[in-house]
Structures are given as structure tokens and as C-alpha cells.
């Protein structure tokens, strides 16, 4: 039974195009994924494609001019705004991107235990810090006294403080060198080993491949493929032409980029979103494309047989 299930999630923003004309800008069109307890799932997409909105949507903290549709299930029960308010910060936690998510005028320790008083809270904070290789002086430091890596670990400490069941990590590694990034992701793996579900939102496919169990690929507002991490070992096991192109673009493979670019959020062609760049596109691709299971994963491609090797 999945811990979290996201079905056909879409997120749009109200926007003023002219003085009084309001339009809805749809940033996320169809997002599907699920996370089991003890599992680490990555959602991979290019920077600025709206992946972070998934985290905000799950936690119910989208900005006031955003609205969402689709279904969210947590523990097999619908996760609505009321329910998430009782769960966030306790069972469901966010690990944000970086140092700007720490109050610049509050000591790290107080931000980890979130204002809980008493010796027990202090002791617990220190023991969590030491688990991540930070000494007790860190608790007395202000954010400006922390390095990028230390700030990441302080943020992780604040997440594990409440012993969560679902951890949503939003780009926790940019700006870290590769060892530090692996160490940070190792900390998430430890949480998964304690039976928490971990959702990693990242643009770093290689890092996701190395550390996660499953990878969901996000392209222009759609999840287009869900694959096991080991499916990325060779190109043939991948299910979608875009994912295959991504594979080709990886430095250890052919290191070659496809032509064209991801369409902007306001452009939405009929049918398959990838068709304009796809070498195998045909007239069939103009219809709406379902997200279907294939070889233990999912794919949003009408010509999936083509990739069913």
C-alpha cells in the first residue's frame, strides 16, 4: 500500500495578462506518482519546470493565486487541506533547498526543535546534530555562520526532529560538491531505512539514479515516465523517447543533446507534449495520451510498443 499517491495533479496560477484580463497559467498539467514506505523516489525535471510546486501542493502551502486539481492520497485516505494541516511538520515534512529557508536572526538549534522548550528538546537537537556530524556549537550559530553544507544538514535535522513518515526533499543538493551531495542523500537513505517514504525533487538525474529506488521523469508539466533506477543502466530499458534522449545526453553515455527545447508553460499542443521534438512522432500522437503501465513502470506515450523491447 503506497504511503503517498498523487493522481493526475494539475496546478495553475491566476495571472493578469492585460489590465483586467485574468488567465490561468497551467504549470503542472498531469502529475502521477506514488511512494511506498521505506522507498526513495525521485522526480526529475529540468530547472524551473515547476517541480517544487509538487512539494508545496502536497503540503498545502501553494501561494494564494495558485489552485490545484487532481487527487492526493496519504495512507490510502484523501489528503485534503484540513488533513494536511494536522500532518505537516509532524508526519509529513519538507526539507527545503537551502539557507534562505532558515530565519536569519534565529539560532540554528531553535529552528531545529522549532521553539520547543526544555532540556529534552535541547538534548534531542544535539543528538540529531551529532548524527549528521555537527557539533553542539552549531545549535548556537546563526544561519550566516553556517556553510552551505552545514545549512543543508541543519535543515535535514529540523525535518527528522519530528520523526516523519514522509519526507519531501526539494533540491537538497545544488551548490554542494559531489561527496557532500552524496552524503546528504545518504542521510535520506537512512530515513528510508527507518521505513519513511522519501520524495526527492531534483534536476540531477545521475545523482537520482545512484541513490533512489524509482525515478519519475517530469517534462513540460507532465510526468512522462516512471522507471526503476536500474532501468537507466542501459537505454533499451527506458520507456519514453524523451527519457532515452536524456540518457543519451548523460556525460558517461553519448553526451549528445537533442534539438529543440521544452515548451513554455503557456504552450500546450494537442496530444503528446513531446511530439514536436520526437523522431518517431506520427499522426497518432495528436490524440490525448494516457499514462499507462509498462514493464513495471509507467509511460505517457501512445507508441509505447515501439519502445517495448
Amino acid at each position, binding site marked *: 500500500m503506497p504511503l503517498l499517491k498523487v493522481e493526475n495533479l494539475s496546478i495553475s496560477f491566476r495571472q493578469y495578462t492585460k489590465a483586467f484580463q485574468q488567465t490561468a497559467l497551467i504549470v503542472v498539467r498531469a502529475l502521477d506518482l506514488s511512494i511506498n514506505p521505506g522507498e526513495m523516489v525521485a522526480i526529475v525535471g529540468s530547472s524551473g519546470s515547476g517541480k517544487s510546486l509538487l512539494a508545496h501542493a502536497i503540503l498545502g502551502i501553494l501561494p494564494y493565486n495558485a489552485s490545484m486539481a487532481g487527487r492526493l492520497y496519504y495512507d490510502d485516505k484523501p489528503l485534503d487541506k484540513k488533513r494536511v494541516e494536522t500532518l505537516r511538520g509532524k508526519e509529513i515534512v519538507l526539507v*527545503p533547498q537551502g539557507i534562505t529557508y532558515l530565519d*536569519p536572526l534565529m539560532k540554528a538549534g531553535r529552528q531545529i526543535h522549532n521553539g520547543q522548550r526544555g532540556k529534552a528538546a535541547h538534548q534531542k537537537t544535539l543528538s540529531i546534530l551529532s548524527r549528521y556530524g555537527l557539533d553542539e556549537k552549531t545549535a548556537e550559530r546563526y544561519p*550566516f555562520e553556517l556553510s552551505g553544507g552545514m545549512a543543508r544538514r541543519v535543515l535535514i535535522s529540523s525535518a527528522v526532529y519530528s520523526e516523519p513518515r514522509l519526507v519531501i526533499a526539494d533540491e537538497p543538493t545544488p551548490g554542494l560538491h559531489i561527496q557532500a551531495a552524496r552524503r546528504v542523500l545518504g542521510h535520506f537513505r537512512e530515513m528510508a531505512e527507518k521505513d519513511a517514504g522519501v520524495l526527492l525533487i531534483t534536476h540531477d538525474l545521475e545523482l537520482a539514479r545512484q541513490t533512489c529506488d524509482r525515478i519519475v521523469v517530469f517534462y513540460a508539466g507532465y510526468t512522462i515516465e516512471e522507471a526503476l533506477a536500474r532501468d537507466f543502466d542501459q537505454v533499451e530499458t527506458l520507456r519514453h523517447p524523451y527519457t532515452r534522449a536524456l540518457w543519451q545526453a548523460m556525460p558517461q553515455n553519448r553526451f549528445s543533446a537533442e534539438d529543440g527545447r521544452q515548451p513554455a508553460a503557456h504552450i500546450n499542443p494537442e496530444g503528446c507534449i513531446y511530439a514536436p521534438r520526437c523522431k518517431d512522432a506520427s499522426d497518432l500522437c495528436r490524440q490525448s495520451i494516457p499514462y499507462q503501465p509498462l514493464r513495471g513502470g509507467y509511460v505517457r506515450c501512445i507508441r509505447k510498443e515501439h519502445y517495448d523491447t
Partner: protein
Amino acid sequence: MKHLIGFITKNLLRMVLLLLCVAIVTFALISISPIDPLSANVGQTALGSLSAEQIAKLEEYWGVGQPPVTRFVAWAKDFIRGDMGVSLLYRQNVSAIIGERLKNSLLLMTLAWLLSGILGFLLGIIAGARKGSLADKLIQGYCLTISSTPVFWLALILLLIFAVWLKWVPIGLSVPIGVEAADVTFLDRLRHAILPALTLSITGIANICLHTREKLIDVMNSDYVLFAKARGDKTGRIVRRHGIRNILLPAITLQFASISEIFGGSILVEQVFSYPGLGQAAVTAGLGSDVPLLLAITIISAAIVFAGNFTANVLYGVIDPRMRKGVKR
């Protein structure tokens, strides 16, 4: 600590330089003004009945014909020694007048400064935390209306309502009429200061309130507040934990820097309420060609305004950990 001493020394030096500049500019302005020391001090009619020798004697006494630099140095020397000269209008030592007037004005300005600071900060928080709400709109409306209202007009209206119609407070002055100076209580002084202080603070509120609101909105849109929301914190707790912490420093700084505005406002308010403070003395001195008094008031006010800004700077260094600890490293 060593850094703080260096900082204070540097700023004190700056203050001396500033006061010197203010003194020079004021002195220069007054010396090119048409004020004639003889006719101002002796009087036009008396001057007509004097003989040429007497006039020459007086001219020598007042330094007519001496170059301005010589006159300035003579004045500055005395000023530094504490001799600010004798007021033409009050026939008293300028330092004695300023001491008395400053006491009155300080009561008035301190009251206004505290009231406007506290009320403005609270209203700003209410408006900023619930941006777009009815409370926010009312508070903003109040601030914008008050900012565009001339302070003397507001003073007249308040005087009309509270002193003339309702008779809750005395109509003017700083002490009751017909009471011996020794019998005047602090409560009497407070009763006389309350309406002018309220008028001054009403205009001061707008400034600090709009600033606080803006800052709090920035904080509420920050990443760390988003993270606090993701951790399940409610708006009230976020304002208390993160909001106030992050807006208090700029608010304090602004409030100390706004001393100059309160000072400027006090001149008008004291005039309307016939309140014998420094502001009123400045107006009297200006209109009555009382050069020694005018010069001294200018220097003293510059010093007070500078002291306000200086305090803000020092407080920042002492309170903000980023500045306090940043130096140590």
C-alpha cells in the same frame, strides 16, 4: 568591544564635524541676512536719537565692520566655553533659556516618540500580517490620510475638539495659569503636554506603521516563513516567532532616525498650542532677529537629531547578530 569604541569615536568625530558645518552655514546665512545688530538690539527709534560717536561706539561693541570670519571665531570660542550669549528678546542667558525650553520640549517629544513608535509598530503588524483584510485597508487608509494632512491643521482640529468643546485638556501652555512655579506638579505638566504630544504622534504613527507593514509583508513572503508554514505553524505563531524578530531592528532604526521629523513637527505643534518649548523659541527668535538664540537652537537641534541617528547605528551593531558577530570573525 574594541570595535565598538572605534565606532563610537569615529561617529563622535563625525558629529563634531557636522556641528561645525551647521554652525558655519547658519552663521553665514545670518550674516548675509538684513539683520542689523544695532537696530535689532538698540531699536530703530533709539538709534535715531543717538549721536554719531555713540553709534560708532556701539558699532565697535557689536563688531560691525569686522570680517565675518573674525566674528565667527569669536562667537565659536565663547560657544565652546558654554557662553552662548544673551538673548535679545528674553534678556537672559541663551543657555538658561534653552535649558528651560528643552525640558518642556523633551517631555513633549519623548511622549510623542514613544506613542508613535509603539502604536505605529502594532498597527503595522496587524496590517502586514493580514494583508488585504479590512483591518489592513482601514489602517492603510488612516496612514495615507494622516500623512497628507498638515500637522498644524490637525493640531487646530484636535485643540478645537478636546480643549474647546470637550474641555478635557487645557487649551495651551505647559503649566496652569496663576499657579506658582513651585506648586506645579508633574501631573499638571503631563496634562498640558498630552494633547500636543498626541498630535505629534498621530502624524508619526503613519510613517512607522507603513514601514512596518511593508517589512512584515516581505518577511511573510520569505522562504523561511514558507518553511515555517510547511512545518505546520499558524500565522499568529509565525508573526511572533519570525515576523517581529526580523522587523523590530529596522523599525527601531527608523524610529530613532525619525527624531528629526518629530523635532520639525514640534515647531508647528508648539506654535498652535502656545507650548513654551524649543520649537516655539526658534520661531520667536527667527521672527524677532534674536541671533544668539537662533544660532544656539540650530546647533542644539542638529546635535539632538544626530544623536538619534547615532543611537540607531549603535543599536544595530549591538543587537543584530550578523553585525555583532560578523566583526569577530
